[in-house]
């Protein structure tokens, strides 16, 4: 330290209050020889510190990201891609076991085996979503659009397609917090690079249909099957981003009826 630096504590009156203050003061500038000496020692001390990493490389905190992919552990609360929770755990486990066995039999990797499966067990896609749209209201960016449909069996509104726009999502977790049914979660997925941004808008639900408890109340397996309908990741119309910002009041003009017609027309085109 070529300049003697002192930190002295004192009480000072400021804005009508006594504030405890630490004042940084410095001594007189040192002479030329002293500066020259400190210059050398100061640099050497810094170099000595960096040299330490040579014999204690375990102190390095850098993570070698693409190389450590296999062992990468993300925390439980990590806010990555949004997805549906699939609460039918038994079906999930059965499916995983089935894929593992298939991979073993065909001597391939699990993700290759998963592609081989044509007919999937639909029960593993049962979800908690009722299509209430709370997440859509909570989203600050209008990244979520929940399309609902009139259910045939239960005669109630139910989720048809849950569209999530990854490209405009800011991962604020508002939708997960707002969901009263614990239907969605943010996961550890973060590798989202694609060559076409249209691939970033997709359906989260695999089944259009009512909430899982309504399906499980039904005993007849045929009726259960009719309650739900498969939905792909892509497919169906895509909402234009932000066409209806939450809480944005509709534009009103003196021509009430005319503006409403325009509004309805615009919505029909955009949704």
């Amino acid at each position, binding site marked *: *330290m*070529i*300049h003697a*630096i002192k*930190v002295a*504590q004192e009480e*000072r009156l*400021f*804005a009508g*209050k006594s*504030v*405890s*203050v*630490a*004042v*940084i*003061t*410095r001594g007189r500038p040192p002479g030329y020889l002293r*500066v020259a000496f*400190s*210059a050398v*020692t*100061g*640099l050497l*001390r*810094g170099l000595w*510190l*960096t040299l330490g990493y040579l014999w204690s490389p375990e102190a390095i*905190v*850098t993570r070698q990201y693409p190389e450590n992919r296999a062992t990468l552990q993300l*925390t*439980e*609360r*990590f*806010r990555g891609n949004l997805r549906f929770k699939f609460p039918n755990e038994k079906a999930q486990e059965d499916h995983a076991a089935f894929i593992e066995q298939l991979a073993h039999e065909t001597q391939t990797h699990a993700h290759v085996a998963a592609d081989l499966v044509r007919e999937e067990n639909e029960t593993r896609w049962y979800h908690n979503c009722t299509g209430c749209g*709370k997440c859509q209201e*909570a*989203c*600050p960016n209008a990244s979520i659009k929940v399309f609902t449909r009139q259910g045939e069996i239960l005669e109630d509104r139910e989720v048809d397609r849950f569209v999530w726009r990854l490209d405009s999502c*800011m*991962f*604020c*977790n*508002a939708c997960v*917090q*707002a969901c*009263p049914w614990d239907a969605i979660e*943010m996961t550890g997925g973060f590798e989202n690079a694609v060559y076409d941004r249209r691939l970033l808008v997709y359906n989260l639900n695999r089944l259009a249909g009512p909430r899982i408890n309504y399906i499980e109340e039904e005993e007849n397996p045929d009726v259960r099957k009719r309650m739900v309908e498969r939905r792909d990741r892509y497919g169906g119309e895509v909402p234009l981003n932000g066409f209806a*910002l*939450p*809480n*944005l009041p509709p534009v009103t003009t003196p021509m009430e009826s005319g503006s409403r017609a325009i509004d309805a027309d615009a919505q029909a085109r955009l949704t």
Partner: protein
Amino acid sequence: MTVHVRTLDELLHAPLEADSDLTTQEYLVNMGPQHPIAHGSLRVVVRLDGETVKEVIPVPGYVHRGVEKMCEHLNYRQVIPYTDRLDYLSAIMNNWAVAKTVETAAGIETNDRIEVIRTIMAELQRLQSHALWWGVTGMDLGAYTAFLYGFREREIIGEIFEETIGARLTMNYIQPGGLMYDIKPDFAAKVKKLLPYLKDCVEQYETLLSGNVIFQERLRNVGIVDGARAVALGCTGPVVRASGVPLDLRATEPYGAYGKVQFNVVVGTVGDCWDRYYVRLEEMRESIRIIEQLIDGIPDGPYSTIRYNVELTLPEGIHYGQVETARGAFGVLIVSDGKREIPYRLHFRSPNFNNLWVVTAMAPGWRIADFISIQSSLDLVIPDIDR
């Protein structure tokens, strides 16, 4: 009193003088918007006479996103993730400013647990922000090693944030009436384990940079601004404290758990770059002290006093609240019409915007290389200037 406001066009097309001894002419040079020292898209036009800076004309606006206008369509919970994107190095403090304003205006009460956790998180963020600033200042002045050391601490504190919150940068953690998540059971133990390490790190910073004669010579007595001028320009945070004004909202109008803890407001005596540098280093030590006092006795209680989906409507009127972020006073001004759950108008008083203009007072008379030191010592975050 009349004030002549000159437009950017007038400033840029003012006649260039040729009054130098060496019969050179003045000339204008753009620093930025793409410049390694700017840490973002900030354009600064400097009028030079040889190497000497004659005038500095900051031209902000290259990252303007209209956040305040966007917030007029968002309810108060939705405003909070947008504040993450202003001063992204003080995301938690910015969240807190909105939450505090809404809580005060709507009469929402919080409990001790919430306030203590908020304070700990904010101080961790301040440490993280100052660590990054220290590294970046080193890098600006030609010491790349410092950059890597600064990021080392940022990484380690970031891991704690990621475990509790799920994000490292844009956290959206502090909500009106509470927090987004409760802390994990091992949070206190982890932070306690971290504190001695961080103390060591501050000592390492001293060894690596503070003791370096080149670094000292580039900062000492450069860019002096006195307290009165800094206050007149609206500076807050370490910039005004380095000039000897103990303006720290944590001490002058305590919020959160700051009223319960002992800490010093660090002030400088000269008001040069070195004071601004050392004030931040000392503030890191003070932040560690604050966390040490709070981490042992986190009270019990719920982590949020209101449900997430509850409708927040503020009474009609103008509501203002401010907190001390790592860079100064961040204020939120909300005009509410009392009917809807969205603000009628909203304004952010961002510390960096005011801290930017002090370069116009500091830089003239110094060389270009000194201007780099001056700008580094202000610790500017450009998205916070432009909003």
